């Protein structure tokens, strides 16, 4: 009797759960939208996303009103310490124990690739804002993430092409020895050779590296016109500083910083960086809309936002709008809606999310100002040209992503 009773009760329970699950697809799971912010909060990439990115995320939530149709928005964050293991384990815990709806931030590409695999296994959702590797929406694409701000393809396409067109046709590549560096190196090599240039030699340095003197000496010995820096953060800063100490530019070679952030230029100063060409997804002083947002951010953080921090705000807004419009935080429902909506805000121009998860938008080729041309501390870039959204990113016809029908 007890047995029958138990079975009966459990069948009813199962039936009830199943019914609830169906209903839940059209509503916000357990009445709260939970956003987990994962980034390097203390290491080499801290200043390009880090605590500033979390502040941008919170700004977006405040501007949205703090809740979606009465469902409160909860935010928590963690430091991935640029470790793929730490990142993946944190997100696994967020999914299992905290019912996270969106993972935002994500900086080091190696961490992102590990995290998006966890998201795919658990049908979670992530918006990648900090990472650079174009492979994140190419061979590593999943239906469970989108990639927002930039990637290595437009960096190479913008900067490398411009440099080769100006006569810089022999390159020495200085590459950070991990997923992002390799992706960027590959994309640059392709652009350089397609435009008639050659890669003379390359060195892959450990990540992170403090002392670049040895590599700079090798680059000087190579006789290449251009030293391409396929690294980021403090590695780029160290490489550029060392090059300036060793008189690289005076001796006739040029540096091409392929991934340079606003905070890097600010840290190095205009004396060292003037004239550097770079590709960026956004610049705070681009127009009125950008300035208006950047100044609000500056009030709160005390420094001007990088493209990544601005992108975190923009993508969070787009996500929350999708949750509100669909009344759901179910991954595929939200992602589908986000893909249908064009993106046009202070950050993204002519933006849309493609089926591989890549958010394509206009990119900009910029040049670092000379100290004489700069009017204040954060007046650092001059925007030279706009690279239209549809030309900037890797065309879908070349995609290896399983989500793309080729």
């Amino acid at each position, binding site marked *: 009797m007890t047995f029958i009773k138990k079975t009966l009760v459990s069948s009813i329970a199962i039936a009830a759960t199943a019914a609830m699950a169906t209903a839940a697809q059209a509503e916000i799971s357990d009445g709260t939208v939970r956003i987990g912010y994962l980034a390097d909060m203390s*290491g080499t990439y801290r*200043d390009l996303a880090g605590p500033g990115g979390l502040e941008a995320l919170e700004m977006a939530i405040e501007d949205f009103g703090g809740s979606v149709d009465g469902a409160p928005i909860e935010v928590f964050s963690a430091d991935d310490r640029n470790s793929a293991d730490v990142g993946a384990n944190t997100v696994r815990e967020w999914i299992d124990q905290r019912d996270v709806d969106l993972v935002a931030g994500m900086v080091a590409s190696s961490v992102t690739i590990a995290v998006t695999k966890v998201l795919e296994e658990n049908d979670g959702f992530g918006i990648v804002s900090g990472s650079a590797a174009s492979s994140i929406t190419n061979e590593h694409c999943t239906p469970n993430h989108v990639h927002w701000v930039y990637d290595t393809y437009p960096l190479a396409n913008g900067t490398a092409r411009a440099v080769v067109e100006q006569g810089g046709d022999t390159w020495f590549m200085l590459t950070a020895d991990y997923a992002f560096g390799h992706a960027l190196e590959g994309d640059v090599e392709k652009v350089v050779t397609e435009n008639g240039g050659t890669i003379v030699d390359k060195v892959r340095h*450990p990540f992170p590296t*403090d002392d670049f003197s040895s590599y700079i*000496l090798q680059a*000087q010995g190579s006789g290449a016109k251009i030293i391409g820096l396929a690294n980021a953060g403090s590695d780029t800063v*160290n490489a550029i500083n060392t090059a300036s100490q*060793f008189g690289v530019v005076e001796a006739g070679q040029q540096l091409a910083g392929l991934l340079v952030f606003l*905070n890097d230029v600010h840290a*190095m100063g205009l004396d060292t960086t003037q004239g550097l060409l770079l590709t960026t997804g956004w610049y705070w002083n681009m127009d009125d809309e950008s300035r208006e947002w950047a100044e609000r951010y500056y009030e709160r953080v005390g420094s001007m936002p990088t493209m990544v921090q601005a992108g975190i705000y923009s993508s969070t807004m787009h996500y929350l709008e999708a949750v509100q419009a669909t009344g759901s935080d179910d991954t595929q429902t939200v992602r589908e809606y986000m893909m249908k909506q064009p993106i046009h805000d202070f950050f993204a121009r002519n933006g849309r999310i493609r089926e591989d998860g890549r958010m394509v938008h206009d990119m900009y080729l910029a040049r670092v100002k000379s100290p004489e041309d700069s009017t204040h501390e954060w007046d650092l870039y001059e925007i030279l040209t706009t690279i239209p959204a549809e030309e900037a990113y890797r065309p879908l016809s070349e995609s290896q992503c399983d989500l793309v029908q080729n």
Partner: protein
Amino acid sequence: MTMIFGVPLAVFTGQLLLGLINGAFYALLSLGLAVIFGLLKIVNFAHGAMYMLGAFATLLGMRYLGINYWAALLLAPLAVGLAGMLIERLLLRRIGHLDHLYGLLLTFGLALIFEGTLVNFFGVSGARYPTPESLAGGYQLGFMFLPKYRAWVLLAAIGVCLFTWYMIERTRLGAYLRAGTENPALMQAFGVNVPLLVTLTYGFGVALAAFAGVLAAPLYPVSPTMGSNLLIVVFAVVVIGGMGSILGAIVTGLAMGLIEGLTKVYYPEAANTVIFLVMILVLLIRPTGLFGKEA
């Protein structure tokens, strides 16, 4: 052109010189560690933080007090040395009678606190410290362009290393020190103030780290995390040289700089790991280190 294993002689010589310069840094830092461990038996995990504080003192001194580089070279180690003496007096002394592990944990904790606090205020991008005017520019050596400042670093670091070695191994003060740590009770009976000697030694050890920090300020961005990356390498150098061996720290520091420099040419991917490979080999063959005394 003469080639050495596929690398032109000129490039090879240049790399050796750069390796030597980095080695001088390692020597200076591991020397401080070796002095502290050899004489006090404290495994000073705050050494990287002290190096970083030396660089920060230089930067902030210039920004807010107008202290120039040459003055900082003296004042920053002095300030950090004083802070070190306070730490020894107030904290390390209390756990002196416990296992080494406690000192290690305490100094590691201190390092994290220093680093975390500064990250909070300054971020990690780092700030630039200008090269002093008189050391700007460089020499064209034929096989390479050597920035004047790096030549100065090499000379200054080796000079300070030799001075320290002489002080500890060849002077009366050094003899007191060594005797005081060997048999404190007996020394005290002779009327030597051993606790004061210990405090001064710790202060001197961390002042060496701060001196390296001042030398580093114009070379690398001054950032709160600059010490933590270096610390592990420096510990490996000390282990290879033999924990506590003064001469071992200096010679091994220079040698590891050279080995790392050559790795950067022949197999750059391994540049960050080569010193640890050497460490493993040394530990397998001579567990007390190259210059260590048999226990």
